[in-house]
C-alpha cells in the first residue's frame, strides 16, 4: 500500500470530476434542492393534528380512555401513548421529537366519581407556539366538557378536571427539518457512491481501463481507497451545504460534533465498497444498474432518510434495522440531535465492521484481469 499511488489516483479522480459539469451540478446543487423541497413540503406550518405524547397513570381506567378518545376526536391533537419516567418526562419529550405532552394522574376516574379535583399536567414548547396553542385548546376544551357532564348535574358547577398552566418541555424540541438534515446527508452518502461505483465497476471493465490499470503497480485496494477518500471529501462538501441550507432557510437546529465526522468518513467507506462489490457481481452494465437499484432503493426509503423509523408500522421497523444506512442515519441523529454518545458509538461500530468486511470482499472479488 503506497500513499503516493493513492494520491496520484485521487488526483485523476478529482480532476475527472471537476471537469464534469453535470456531476458537479448534481453534487453541489442537488443537496440544496433536496433540502429546500422536503423542508418546504413538511415544515410549512402545522395545519394537521399535533402529535401528543400521553402517559396514562390511571391505568387505562374507562374515564381516562374516554378522555383521550375525546381528545383525539378534536382533530387538534393526535394521542400517542408513551411510557416515560415522570421525573424525566419533559426531557424525554424533547429527545423524542414531541412538542406537546400530557400526563393523566393516577386517581383520574376516582376524582371524577368522587368529585375531588384532579390535575392534568400539560407540557408544551414555547418555540412551537402554534402546536402549544392547539394542544392547550384541545385539552382545556375536553376537560370543560368532562367537568360539565360530571358535576353540573348536582347543581354545583365546581370543576373537577383542572388544567393548570402548561409546563415547558425541558430540552430542545426538534422539528421535521432537524430530522431531515441527517436523513438527507445519509441519502447522499448512500446514493452518490452507490450509483457511481456500480457504473464504474462495469464500465471500466468493459472499456478496458481496469486492464490498463492492472498493468501498473496500482493495487485494487489502493484504487478503491482513492475512490473512498474522494467520496469522503465530497460528503463533507455536500453535508456542509445541506446543513448550511437547512439552518439558513429553515432555522434547523443541529449540532456539529466530532462524532459526526466519524459517520461522514465511515458512511462513504461502506457504500463505495458496497457499490464496487455490487458492480463486480454484475456481468454487464445493465445488470449492474439493476443490482445497484435493488440494493439502493429499499435503503433510500426504509432507513429513516425522509421519515423517522420510529414512525414506521411496527412490522416494518425490524426491516429498517437490517439496512446498513439505518445505522448511518441513526448515528447522525444521535450526534447531531440527541447527544447520545453511547448509541452513536454502537452505530459507528456496526458501520465500521460492515465497511471492513465489504471492502475486503470488494477487493477480493473484483477482477482487474480476466481469469478465463
Amino acid at each position, binding site marked *: 500500500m503506497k500513499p503516493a*499511488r493513492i494520491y496520484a489516483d485521487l488526483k485523476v479522480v478529482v480532476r*475527472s470530476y471537476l471537469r464534469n459539469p453535470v456531476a458537479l451540478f448534481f453534487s453541489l446543487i442537488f443537496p440544496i434542492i433536496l433540502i429546500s423541497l422536503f423542508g418546504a413540503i413538511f415544515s410549512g406550518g402545522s395545519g394537521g393534528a399535533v402529535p401528543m405524547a400521553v402517559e396514562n397513570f390511571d391505568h387505562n381506567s374507562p374515564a381516562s380512555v374516554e378522555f383521550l378518545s375525546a381528545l383525539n376526536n378534536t382533530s387538534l391533537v393526535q394521542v400517542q401513548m408513551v411510557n416515560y419516567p415522570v421525573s424525566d418526562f419533559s426531557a424525554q419529550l424533547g429527545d423524542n421529537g414531541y412538542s406537546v405532552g400530557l400526563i393523566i394522574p393516577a386517581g383520574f376516574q376516582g376524582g371524577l366519581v368522587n368529585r375531588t379535583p384532579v390535575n392534568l399536567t400539560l407540557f408544551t414548547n414555547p418555540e412551537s407556539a402554534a402546536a402549544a396553542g392547539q394542544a392547550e385548546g384541545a385539552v382545556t376544551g375536553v376537560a370543560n366538557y368532562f367537568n360539565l357532564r360530571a358535576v353540573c348535574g348536582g347543581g354545583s358547577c365546581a370543576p373537577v378536571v383542572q388544567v393548570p398552566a402548561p409546563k415547558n418541555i425541558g430540552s430542545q424540541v426538534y422539528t421535521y427539518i432537524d430530522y431531515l438534515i441527517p436523513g438527507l446527508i445519509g441519502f447522499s452518502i448512500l446514493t452518490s457512491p452507490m450509483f457511481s461505483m456500480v457504473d464504474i465497476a462495469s464500465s471500466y471493465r468493459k472499456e*478496458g481501463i481496469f*486492464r490498463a490499470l492492472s498493468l*501498473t503497480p496500482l493495487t485494487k485496494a489502493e484504487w478503491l481507497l482513492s475512490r473512498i477518500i474522494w467520496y469522503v471529501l465530497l460528503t463533507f462538501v455536500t453535508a456542509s451545504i445541506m446543513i448550511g441550507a437547512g439552518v439558513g432557510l429553515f432555522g434547523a437546529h443541529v449540532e456539529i460534533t466530532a462524532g459526526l465526522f466519524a459517520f461522514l468518513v465511515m458512511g462513504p467507506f461502506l457504500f463505495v465498497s458496497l457499490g464496487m462489490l455490487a458492480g463486480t457481481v454484475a456481468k454487464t452494465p445493465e445488470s449492474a444498474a439493476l443490482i445497484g437499484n435493488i440494493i439502493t432503493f429499499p435503503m433510500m426509503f426504509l432507513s429513516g432518510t425522509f421519515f423517522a423509523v420510529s414512525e414506521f408500522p411496527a412490522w416494518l421497523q425490524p426491516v429498517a434495522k437490517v439496512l446498513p444506512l439505518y445505522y448511518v442515519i441513526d448515528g447522525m441523529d444521535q450526534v447531531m440531535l440527541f447527544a447520545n454518545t453511547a448509541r452513536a458509538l454502537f452505530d459507528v461500530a456496526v458501520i465500521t465492521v460492515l465497511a471492513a468486511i465489504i471492502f475486503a470482499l470488494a477487493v477480493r472479488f473484483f477482477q482487474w484481469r*480476466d481469469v478465463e
Partner: protein
Amino acid sequence: MASAIEVRGLVKRYASISAVDHIEFTVEAGAVYAFLGPNGAGKTTTTEILEGLRRRTEGHVRVLGLDPWTEGIRLHRRIGVIPQDFRFFEKITPTEAIEYYGSLFGTRPNPTELLGKVDLLDKAHSRFDTLSGGQKQKLGLALALSDNPEVCFLDEPTTGLDPQARRSIWEVIRGLKRDGRTVFLTTHYLEEAEILADQVGIIHHGKIIASGTPGEIIRAHGRAERLVFEAGPALADYLQRTLGCPAEVREGRVEVPLRSNREAAQILTAVDASGIPSNGFFTERDTLEDVFVRLVGPMDEGALKTEATA
C-alpha cells in the same frame, strides 16, 4: 543472445474449444517479433497470456524469466503494454496521464519528451475524450514507454492511423530496437511486419503455421523470385524449347522462375535473340502478404488489411 520471451506447449482452452493449441516460439532479447494471424486465430489470447492479463490452461511461458500470471506485478514493472483500442479516463490530458503513470511506477517520465516521441506534442493538454482514435493509440504508446520497459507489447499500435502517423510510430519502434528493447508486435499490416520485424510468427486456428525471418518465411512458403515479361504465350513456348526453363503464362504475362544470376542473363539474351515482341520485363518476388494469404487461405482473406484498404 538471451531470450526475452519463451513459449513452449502453450494451450488456452475455453470449454472444449482450443483458442491456442500447443504453440512454441522464442523471442530473442532486443528483437522485434511480429505476431500475425487473421481475426480469431488466437493472436490476442496469446498476447494477453504473455502480458499476464489472462491465465493459460497449460504450457510453459516466461517473459524476462518471469511467469506472467503468478509474477505479474514484478513483470509489469519491466514491460510496457499498449492494449488494442486503448481507453483512458476521459477528462485527463496526455501530459497528466504520463505524470499519473510516472507516479504509479515511481518513475519521473518527461511528458514533453515522450509525447514528442509519439508525435502527440500538439495535443499535450487536450482531454482524452477530444482525441482521435489514432491520437488515443499514440497516448497508449507513450504510456507504455513511460516506465522505460525492457519488453514492449504493442497490440495493433497503428490500426486506424493515417500513413504519416503510422510511419512515425514505425520510427518509434525502430528507436525501441536501437535502445536494445524487445518488441512484441501484433499487427494486421503485413507490410509493417515485413519492414520492422526480425522474426515473424503466423498463427492460424490456434497453431503456429509459419515462423522465421520474413525472408525465411517467404522462401519457405512463397514462390521463388521470377522474371516477368509483358508478352504472350509464344515467348513462353520459345523459352521452354530453347532453354528448357519452366516459363509459364499467368494473368497475360510470362513468368520465369530464377535460380541464379547467370540464368537471368541467359534468359534475357534468349528473349532478345527470339525477336518475339515484349513490352519490357521486371523481377518479382512474393511479399509476406502474398505468403500470408496463401497460408491462411481465401476464406480468411477478409481478415487481412493492407495499407491500401486501411
